[in-house]
């Protein structure tokens, strides 16, 4: 009995994913639990595993396809010894859609969509499959086939630049350069042969996403930067007193300076809502809620889980949420709902002793706050040199949305809130 391979819903709330590539090719044997294909959502890469041992009988959605709805039958697994006739019900080539697929399937789309309907919502591969012949035969040079197989690149998804659309080596090499390298070892051998002193680390899905999003941001968003120093002596004293209470509280809490910054930023965003916004070609979208993303460094790269309605939460609650999200991020357990959305981001490198830095705006958001270390510095008080605890904040903003004066007003509000924590009460 042929087993349909459906696009799994790996994370709660996930509606669709990009089918990055097939790890197995048609006709290849697979063991139960082996990875068949790789998926990618906004911020995570997932694998589709074989439910049972058998042979990958047919690929219905080629690699490198965007917006595949959850539940779509992406391929068919045959049991060992099963005849190919079991595949008779499945098209020999991925269904072609008349129009590009909608951005997302409707919420709660039934997982088992009837096949006849699927053609309407079937995803479209990114590039034309010019090399595909009338009977679904793919015209590719032997060298192209071998290189593609080694790198796990599906020929079906490639456009051939050779005569009559034949896929040649160059096409595979271009696909390799634009797609993730195979995680499997063989691809490394050729590279290693020429560069023994360089270790080649294949891109993870997350690394690719980071690279793409940050490159786009730095290239397309007109950044500008504002820096301000905040005197934290009063805030630190308050923090000490609160934390002393927190040890005996139920539940217990322990507030970090960063928690105060997030708490204060949420209120500053309420006072200067123009910063809590994003750019689109049609209009500026100003958010009604104050949802703040907190950058967390993980072994795989940077993630930015979001604290919803941060301005409506007490300090201890906010602190607890940030801590929990950071834990989940480091364990790779973030659900899409944990990181989707958000109107503003805070990135803190103070714990490394970084005094100040300029972060890259996290699109589509309009601004990101870079938080430096709290350190004792000389300050001038009443024309006298004194020692104060200072922290430097740098706001990076998208000038299309946030003008210089608006950004400055936001920082001024934030400075007031942090330097005089009584302000936080009102």
């Amino acid at each position: 009995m042929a087993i349909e391979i459906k696009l799994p819903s790996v994370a709660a709330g996930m509606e669709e994913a990009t089918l990055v590539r097939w790890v197995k090719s048609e006709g290849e044997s697979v063991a139960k639990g082996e990875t068949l294909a790789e998926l990618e959502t906004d911020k995570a890469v997932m694998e589709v595993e074989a439910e049972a041992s058998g042979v990958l009988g047919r690929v219905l959605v080629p690699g490198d396809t965007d917006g595949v709805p959850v539940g779509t039958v992406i391929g068919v697994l045959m049991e060992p010894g099963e005849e190919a006739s079991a595949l008779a019900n499945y098209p020999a080539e991925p269904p072609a859609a008349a129009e590009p697929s909608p951005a997302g399937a409707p919420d709660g789309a039934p997982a088992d969509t009837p096949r006849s309907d699927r053609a309407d919502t079937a995803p479209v591969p990114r590039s034309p499959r010019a090399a595909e012949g009338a009977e679904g035969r793919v015209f590719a040079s032997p060298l192209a086939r071998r290189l593609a197989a080694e790198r796990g690149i599906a020929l079906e998804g490639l456009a051939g630049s050779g005569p009559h659309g034949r896929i040649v080596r160059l096409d595979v090499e271009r696909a390799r350069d634009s797609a993730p390298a195979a995680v499997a070892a063989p691809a490394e051998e050729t590279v290693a042969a020429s560069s023994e002193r360089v270790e080649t680390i294949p891109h993870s899905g997350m690394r690719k996403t980071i690279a793409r999003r940050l490159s786009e941001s730095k290239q397309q968003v007109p950044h500008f930067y504002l820096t301000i120093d905040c005197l934290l002596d009063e805030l630190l004293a308050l923090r000490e007193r609160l934390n002393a209470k927190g040890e005996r509280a139920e539940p217990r809490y322990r507030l970090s300076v960063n928690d105060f910054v997030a708490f204060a930023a949420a209120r500053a965003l309420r006072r200067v809502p123009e910063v809590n916004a994003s750019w689109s070609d049609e209009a500026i979208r100003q958010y009604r809620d104050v949802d703040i993303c907190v950058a967390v460094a993980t072994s795989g790269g940077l993630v930015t889980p979001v604290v919803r309605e941060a301005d409506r939460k007490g300090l201890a609650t906010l602190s607890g949420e940030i801590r929990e999200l950071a834990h989940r991020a480091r364990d790779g357990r973030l659900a899409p709902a944990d990181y989707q959305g958000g109107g503003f981001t805070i990135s803190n490198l103070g714990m490394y002793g970084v005094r100040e830095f300029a972060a890259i705006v996290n699109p589509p958001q309009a601004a990101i706050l870079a938080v430096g270390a709290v350190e004792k510095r000389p300050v001038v008080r009443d024309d006298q040199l004194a020692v104060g605890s200072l922290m430097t904040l740098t706001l990076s903003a998208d000038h299309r949305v946030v003008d210089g004066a608006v950004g400055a007003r936001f920082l001024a509000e934030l400075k007031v809130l942090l330097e005089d924590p009584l302000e936080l009460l009102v």
Partner: protein
Amino acid sequence: MAQFQVLVVGAGPGGYVAAIRAAQLGFATAIVERAELGGVCLNWGCIPTKTLLRSAELFRQAQSSGAFGVVMDGTVRFDIRAAVAHSREVAGRLNRGVRGLLKKHGVQVLTGQASLQGEGRVRIEGGDGTQQVSADHIVLATGARPRELPGFTPDGERIWTAREAMTPQALPASLTVIGAGAIGVEFASFYAALGVEVTLLEAAERIVPQEDEEIAAHLHARLAEQGIDVHVGVRAEAPEVTASGVRMSVDAAGVRFDHHSEKVIVAAGIVGNVEDLGLENTAVQVEKRHIVVDRWSATGEPGVYAIGDVAGPPWLAHKASHEGVACIERIAGLADAHALDPDAVPSCTYCHPQVASMGLTEALARERGHAVSVGRFSFVGNGKALALGDSQGFVKTVMDAHSGELLGAHLIGPDVTELIGTYALGRTLETTELEIMRTVFPHPTLSEALHESVLAAFDRGIHA
């Protein structure tokens, strides 16, 4: 003023092919030639020399025909005048053939020296006086000529270029060939076969420096066997024409010796014909006496292109032809225009034994970072070669050990110039070792050696 869409300057194998392709694609096309249609290749290069080498081959076979049961009573002798006359006849036939082809395709032939005046205008002098024409696209295919060696100014009498060397009135008693590239070894081989005492001088550390090292070593030994006195790493200097020939000083890494021979052939490379073309009126760049072009043969001047020998090495007729076609198709905006892959250009040398190659030498492949699988097969193990009585030499195939890509092929031995095309086809089709292994090569043929060498590259050789 006559107006054309495409004007090709030079009617050698690059120019006339480009002109025909342009006419095929519907361009109003003209070609300018100051000498013979067909260029050096047809008239003074490839074709007449191959005819002469065929004469030498027949002579060599006639001398050894007894072993095959063909007994020639009396003497077998070589008539150089008849051989030269025959080669001129063949060249003449091809020259007329080119004229016919150009006419058939409606290409207008203009006679004279072309000179670019800028902005698509070209002055043509000679033949029927001076005329001005203009063209949207000008393809320079003016070819190249032998490089002169200091002191060895060709005089047509004692010091020859290839042209005199292929039209001798009589055989000299002794001959020195300076330069052991393809042209040099072909003449050395030709004259040695006819009993001339031949000395071959090469400045590089080995003969046929462009070829794979193993091929060069094998050829060196075979030429020496034929009685050719081969010296590598030497420079010929201070020539002095004497009553009986040319005396020169040969510098072999600091050790000098005097050398004398009746005739000298200078075959020390070639230089592009870049002079008198009016290039100073354009933005065309010339470097090392060749026109600088991109991979589609475009020069620094919009609308001016250069193909073939004048645009740099390898100096091969088929390279010129392919560049010409690619250049014209690019001009026409054809979607499937295809620039020449320099690693898929075969080269053939018709000395005895023949040498043929394509792609990367083993050394170059390693230099480029390939892990290589190299397979060799000697013609001693090939039935057809034994039947021909010519079983020396071998086939060497260089493949990428990882991807199985065909990187290069290097052959020396009987009729290998006819085998190399198979490799070129394989390279173009992006073969891996498997397709060659699975191909049925007919028995008994020399092509089986090609098959075996690929098998050997992956330790699967059957007959070795």
